[in-house]
């Protein structure tokens, strides 16, 4: 057991999977000698060499399109996109090819690749370095979408993702890259894709969230007198709707928290699913505390945009009082 940050946990998972399977290779911008702009791949170039940890040209569609070819020809590429704001140029390759390859060839070709992307706000980064694109990729069938909220989960989910025979979008909430440490086993272990985690149990209200806002939700729960259950989705698609259903049937009230804009955010999907499954158990409408339907502002105002604790607390009170 070691006490690791989320960045270190990912680094460890990469090392162990690369040791275990020589089909695993990394590619991306600055992932080589520099170790990535967040140092997630620190030391890997020295350890595994330039054939397995490859600095590519500055071209995101190129990185993903090439990774698709690598995967189709037997490798297990783990491409990195430097920030979610630069995932856009790769959107087409991800959605028209990676996501469709298995079904359009009825299984003759598959794309086992893991696209690692730091996402989300809160670190005073420049423009286009703070968005949360999970709903976009969840809307495209054929992908899995994962977002760890703790070092322990980060390692276990990444190992699952690398071993998964289908393409996985692995979104890393950069706000908590180094925000806290956690005991992480040295051995390899997996956390199943598609299973949510109950962070804390409660009886009166359910909060559903994922990624960095888990921290703000925990604070809001601490500040509240209510008995609140907190669910960290961990996987966005396929979502663990059974876990949510179970909790909301118990509590009858639910608040969903995410950083992405409200309209068509993943919160809408969950809220609708809750209505579909828990209609007669709901004592208040499910509420969303999310980013606003504006472009994420530059950093002077980013904390006003993000769903910080106070906004969550207010929603808790309002839903509880409904």
């Amino acid at each position, binding site marked *: 057991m070691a006490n690791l940050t989320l960045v270190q946990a990912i680094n460890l998972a990469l090392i162990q999977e690369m040791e275990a399977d020589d089909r695993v290779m990394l590619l991306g911008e600055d992932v080589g000698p520099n170790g990535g702009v967040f140092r997630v791949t620190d030391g890997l170039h020295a350890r595994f060499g330039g054939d397995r940890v490859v600095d590519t040209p500055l071209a995101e569609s*190129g990185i993903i*399109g090439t990774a698709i070819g690598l995967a189709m020809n037997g490798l297990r590429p783990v491409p990195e996109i430097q920030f979610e704001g630069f995932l856009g140029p790769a959107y087409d390759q991800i959605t028209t090819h990676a996501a469709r390859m298995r079904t359009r060839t009825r299984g003759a070709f598959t794309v086992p690749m893991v696209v690692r992307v730091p996402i989300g706000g809160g670190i005073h980064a420049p423009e286009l370095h703070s968005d949360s694109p999970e709903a976009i990729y969840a809307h495209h069938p054929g992908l899995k979408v994962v977002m760890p909220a703790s070092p322990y989960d980060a390692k276990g989910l990444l190992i699952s993702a690398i071993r998964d025979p289908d393409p996985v979008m692995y979104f890393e909430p950069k706000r908590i890259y180094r925000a806290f440490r956690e005991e992480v086993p040295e051995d390899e272990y997996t956390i199943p894709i598609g299973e949510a985690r109950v962070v804390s149990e409660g009886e009166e209200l359910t909060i559903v969230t994922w990624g960095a806002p888990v921290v703000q939700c925990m604070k809001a729960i601490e500040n509240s007198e209510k008995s609140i259950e907190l669910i960290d989705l961990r996987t966005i698609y396929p979502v663990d709707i*059974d876990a949510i259903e179970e909790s909301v049937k118990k509590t009858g009230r639910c608040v969903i928290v995410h950083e992405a804009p409200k309209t068509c955010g993943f919160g809408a999907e969950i809220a609708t699913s809750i209505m579909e499954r828990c209609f007669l158990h709901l004592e208040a409408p499910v509420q969303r505390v999310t980013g606003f339907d504006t472009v994420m502002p530059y950093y002077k105002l980013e904390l006003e945009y993000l769903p910080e604790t106070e906004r969550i607390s207010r929603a808790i009170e309002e839903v509880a009082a409904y």
Partner: protein
Amino acid sequence: MPVKTVFETKIDHVSILDENGNFDAKLGKGVIPDQDAVALFEHMLTCRHLDEVAFKLQRSGRMGTYPENRGQEATSLGAAYALDKKDWLVPCYRENAGLFWRGLPIEMVLLHWMGDERGNQIDNELCITPLAIPIGTQMLHATGLAWAAKYRQEKQIACTFFGDGATSEGDFHEAANFAANLDLPVIFFCQNNGWAISVPSKIQCSAPTVAQRGLAYGMDCVQVDGNDIFAVVKVTRDAAKLAREKKRPTFIEAVTYRLGDHTTADDARRYRDEKEVESWKKKDPILRLEKYLREKKLWTDKKHEAALAKARETVTAAVKRAEEIADPKIADFFNSMYAELPADLKRQRDTMCTHSLGLDPSQLEGTERQAVNSQH
């Protein structure tokens, strides 16, 4: 020196069997043995016949949109002939001749255009990727396929085919740039057929040649008469050698012409001059090879008759296989989504409902039940 030259280059055009039937004995020596030339010619006849049949299938409602290959048979065929069986062919959608030569069953391509994914369910041993619909995107896959082979220190290379229009897409640029800078064994084979649907190739590339696209990457580039199968074979062979031995990519511009409409959904008379088409009909790769074979006494009227009969037989059989395939099952488009189907997708498949009231298991009638929509 205030002004000094830091780069100098030129681009060659290669031709062996020209449109008048002249054969350059020196350059052409040993490129294609007689016996193979006959086989390639017969193959082209089959492909040409398939185009005719496919056109009719579409017109009579038995197939969806189909892109004729007519006039371009020598390009992909010459390349496929020049490559090893284990080299990847990464096509767009106008490479029937090369794909069939490699061994892709004709009915696979028909099934694709008949709206059936089983047309893409290609045996991995064939080293062929499925037809690519989004223009320009498949070159990146070729780059990755070739990279994986290099990574494993295998001899395999990749050859990707695309049109003049495709060279306008950013993905083409990124693929070529990756291949050149990371030393990957890829052949970029551009079929410049003069048009991208209704847009003439000057709008895609106003430079004197499309071949010079490759100069941007410091790549070897060459222009070839794409209706001359000898020249195509030669330049592809050279490119393959460079790729295999030096892990260096090559850009090939094969100058050819689309004699038919863009697809059966197109009417080329709206935008191009019949005279242009007529002038290119004289350069038809099939006519040219036939003339060559007849002059060498390798071909006779009788052989021609027999070859056409064989082509009809082959195509008829392929159409039959394509049309007689069992109806696809609805469950297929669910089951093929992931290695393991997520629970909610299973429910959608089993209930054929997306609304949750249909999710009650009591509504299940088995996974291969009739589709809701096809009941009426």
